[in-house]
């Protein structure tokens, strides 16, 4: 579905973001990651794929191939879309067990983006992570 998780891994993102000092470079990079995330087909931008967030909208589509889960996600906001790419780099193409074992809070803490996972942000990101974890749990 996308190169995130296969070509671009969570380790790559941690690596790249560690080079940047200021917020401007970091956000620029995140926005660019979002631009690399393939746009979701309009057919999927429906209520049933919508992850509720207070501010921007997030859509998530999943598919299981053999023992691996693949995800496609999109948002109507640039920065959130970039953050979705960051999340998919960790989860896409992984087994349900890998997904459940992955320390997403630790990952975001390392990226210095943990505030984006907080419940107050209302950007749908936390809900999307929870949705992915539920999908992984159900796939067992």
């Amino acid at each position, binding site marked *: 579905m996308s190169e995130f998780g296969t070509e671009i891994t969570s380790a790559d993102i941690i690596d790249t973001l560690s080079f940047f000092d200021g*917020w401007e470079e970091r956000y620029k990079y995140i926005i660019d990651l979002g631009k690399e995330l393939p746009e979701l087909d309009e057919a999927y931008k429906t209520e049933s794929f919508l992850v509720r967030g207070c*501010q921007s909208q997030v859509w998530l589509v999943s598919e299981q191939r053999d023992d691996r889960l693949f995800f496609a996600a999109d948002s109507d*906001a*640039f*920065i959130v879309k970039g953050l979705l790419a960051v999340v998919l780099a960790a989860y896409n193409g992984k087994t349900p067990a890998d997904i459940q074992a992955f320390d997403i809070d630790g990952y975001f803490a390392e990226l210095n983006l943990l505030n984006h996972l907080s419940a107050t942000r209302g950007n749908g990101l936390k809900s999307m992570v929870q949705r992915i974890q539920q999908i992984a749990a159900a796939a067992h």
Partner: protein
Amino acid sequence: MVIALSDFDVAAIRKQFPILQQEVNGHPLVYLDNAATTQKPESVIDAIANYYRYDNSNVHRGAHALSDRATEKFEGARVQLAQFINAPAKEQLLWTRGTTEGINVVAASWGRANLSAGDRVLVSAMEHHSNIVPWQMVAEATGAIVEPIAVTAEGVIDLSALREQLDERVKMVALGHVSNALGSINPVADIIPLAHAAGAKVLIDAAQSIAHWPLDVQALDCDFLVFSGHKMFGPTGIGALYGKRELLEAMPPYQGGGEMIESVSFAGTIYNQLPYKFEAGTPNIAGAIGLAAAVSFLQSFDREAADRHEQALLRSAEQQLQALGGFPLVGTSREKTAVMSFTCDFAHPQDVGMILDQQGVAVRTGNHCAQPIMDQFGIPGTVRASFSLYNNEDDVAKLMAALAKAKMFLA
């Protein structure tokens, strides 16, 4: 030393707000989310702390000095708030948790007793969800209908449409005094007599107006008026509901418990008098005392001068925003509080909000709990910068610099 209070000195006011003296993300905080909640002056913080430090006790029932003192302060706060909105009597000022609870009390208690199938409740199309959903809930229970009052593309109530809508089946007009999402000031002084002429009651949601100019419930002749403490420099979790005496007397209690009864037996319970009939349980004593301190704060300077100051900031910000380009204003009513709501031609409002936050500028983005008007305008939400009396031109300049950077970044 006697300080003349006729002048409005922003620098002196600003110094009373300790929270504004901090840095966020390495930048001095620019707090422009005042329509969501205002910051608290030292005097309010002290009133709350001192209550707990010296006077804490349960009210109305203790046989000891502390309880007497707490009761005196708590009831004194009620008198002060009642006078602040010119209520005819202190019993008509009921403590609530805030605007939302005030509307819920009226919708549940007055609404269930007075609405029946086919009756109509009018709310404006730009209401906050808190002035829509409680009415929908009572409508579901009673068969009444909740209808929007049309709002123009500028964010102004369509008075001629309202006149058409008003008939004998309209039992309630529930209206925000000021739109939280757009800042539009609604002409409640014109609407209240229109609604009354049709036989409807009127509830005014003053959450967004109470901090900006003096309100007089008798001059307005509204039937109910609700507001929140935290949007007028007071604490969260406290607010008030004013109602006309005969309406409050006739309304059944909202919640049962202690305080709200005169006598209880298994044969039957007699309810307490106003205002206690509506104040079951131990109230938010510290909140009421803190809110009274907020009223004293508001009475410590020339409020008209403060309003002129806010309006000047709004005009300056709107002019600079239009000069910058790419951020179209949403809500262009000629009568507005100092709320600047806008979208972005090249990004989502949330992107703009996140970039502003990185630069220490606090705004709100989203639908502002007013989804119907956002849907009407066909936008996902707005960026909302809302100014208070402690904001200054420097805050406006920092907002503009941060927006210029957001434009560079996202365009």
